[in-house]
């Protein structure tokens, strides 16, 4: 048994040495396709997190006119309080001129042209309303109750942005998934070709092996192992690259958001994918790489044994 394992490993290693250019091509294609698969999973997760954050907290903002009277503000507030009491609205904190102005300046901190267009006096105050329901009909109905009321400047809902983002994420998901599947198919094809070439180069040996009574599996296993390892090396390269990219990505986001106080509310932060999830992507990549390698080599090894 030990001698068989030793034999298989020795043959596999020799296969790599014999055929390193083709092997490198297979491994790199596998690595690129798997990296793309990883990035695709990664982007999906990031978008999912952002969308989840937003839809968990679907809110609309009732902007009051800068010159709204105290009575007008009080009327809107009392409506909202009634709705809170009846459970339609979860919360509706009011942001006064000073706070709104600070938030505005913070959001446009990097864009002084916009930042300096408004003074504190000109700032609309706002109620940030978090409805209890996520149903868009209910929410639109609520929005309708505030739009056009005296003193109300406008009612804005992020629903439309959510729609755009989820459309965008769907598109990116589709494109990246299609790309990595095609590339992984290419990798399987290249591994298949590498193994086929290796078997053809050794057809004499295979003929002798068959004639002295080696089983097909005995002949196949080193070749299949070779393909499997090509796939695994590909997934190792892809995993390392993905982990590296994640470190850079996370670092960038943190440095951009570092100066901002209410970091939690910023959508950008939700684009950070936790290292635990990256770990689970790595596991998926390894499995995919192993499957691709085994598939390519397996097809080659079962088809080309009759040399």
């Amino acid at each position, binding site marked *: 048994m030990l*001698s068989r394992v030793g*034999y298989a490993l020795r043959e596999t290693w020799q296969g790599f040495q014999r055929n390193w250019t083709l092997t490198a091509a297979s491994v790199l294609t596998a690595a690129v396709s798997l990296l793309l698969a990883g990035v695709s999973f990664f982007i999906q997760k990031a978008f999912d997190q952002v969308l989840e954050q937003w839809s968990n907290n679907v809110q609309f903002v009732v902007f009051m006119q800068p010159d709204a009277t105290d009575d007008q503000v009080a009327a809107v507030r009392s409506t909202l309080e009634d709705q809170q009491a009846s459970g339609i609205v979860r919360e509706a904190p009011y942001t006064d001129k000073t706070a709104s102005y600070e938030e505005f300046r913070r959001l446009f901190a990097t864009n002084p042209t916009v930042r300096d267009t408004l003074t504190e006096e000109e700032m609309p105050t706002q109620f940030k309303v978090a409805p209890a329901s996520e149903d868009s009909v209910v929410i639109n109905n609520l929005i309708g109750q505030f739009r056009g009321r005296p003193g109300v400047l406008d009612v804005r809902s992020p629903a439309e942005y959510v729609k755009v983002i989820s459309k965008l994420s769907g598109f990116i998901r589709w494109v990246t998934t299609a790309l990595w599947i095609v590339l992984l198919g290419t990798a399987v094809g290249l591994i298949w070709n590498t193994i086929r070439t290796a078997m053809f180069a050794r057809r004499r*040996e295979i*003929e*002798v092996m068959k*004639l*002295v*009574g*080696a089983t097909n599996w005995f*002949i196949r296993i080193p070749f299949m192992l070779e393909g499997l390892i090509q796939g695994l090396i590909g997934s190792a390269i892809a995993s390392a690259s993905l982990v590296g990219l994640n470190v850079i990505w996370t670092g960038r986001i943190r440095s951009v958001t570092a100066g901002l106080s209410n970091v939690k509310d910023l959508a950008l932060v939700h684009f950070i994918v936790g290292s635990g999830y990256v770990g689970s992507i790595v596991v998926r990549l390894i499995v995919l790489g192993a499957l691709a390698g085994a598939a390519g080599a397996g097809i080659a090894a079962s088809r080309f044994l009759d040399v």
Partner: protein
Amino acid sequence: MIRLENVTKIYDGDVTALRDASFDIPKGEFIFLVGPSGSGKSTILRLLNRQYKPERGDVWVAGKNINRMREGDVPRLRRQIGNIFQDYKLLLNKTVFENVAYALEVIGQPRHVIRQQVPQVLDLVGLAGKEDRFPNQLSGGEQQRVSVARAFVNRPLILLADEPTGNLDPATGEGIMKLLEAINKTGTTIVMATHDQVIVNSMRKRVVQLDRGVIVRDQTRGVYE
């Protein structure tokens, strides 16, 4: 040991390589298959180690109908059969020792068996001391001896030899025949396809003659023609 019952082998649907061939080879016999090129000698050898399956008839080897054998059992059949070829079929990147050891290695024999058996058989074929040579460093006769050693190291029941002296000068060929005779004396059945009249005539073994796929003569202690 070997029995062909009305065996017909057709290649590519229209070339009949063997037609309705029948014969019996008892254990320990030495038999020559003679006839011109394309008469069906090699076809019979390939039917015996199940490189081919016949279109009609049955091939029995060591008590088993090998046409009905499952693919998975073929390796076990082949471990009972040694093969020798005109072109030796040695692996050029392996030494003499490795070439012979290979036959044991690929059927999963443990290392201590290999270390014991290979020198023994190399000694038997007269290659002691040349274990570390590569095939290219050997004469044709020596290469054929390596091939005989590889075929015999597993102590097969049957040895199939396809023109084993075809590439050798007469004196060297005679040496190989002496070796095969010695192996035959250990009880191994030998089936040898050959063109070599001198060898067949001098050995006086059973001769099966083929002509265009038909057995035209089956003679004990026969001669070539």
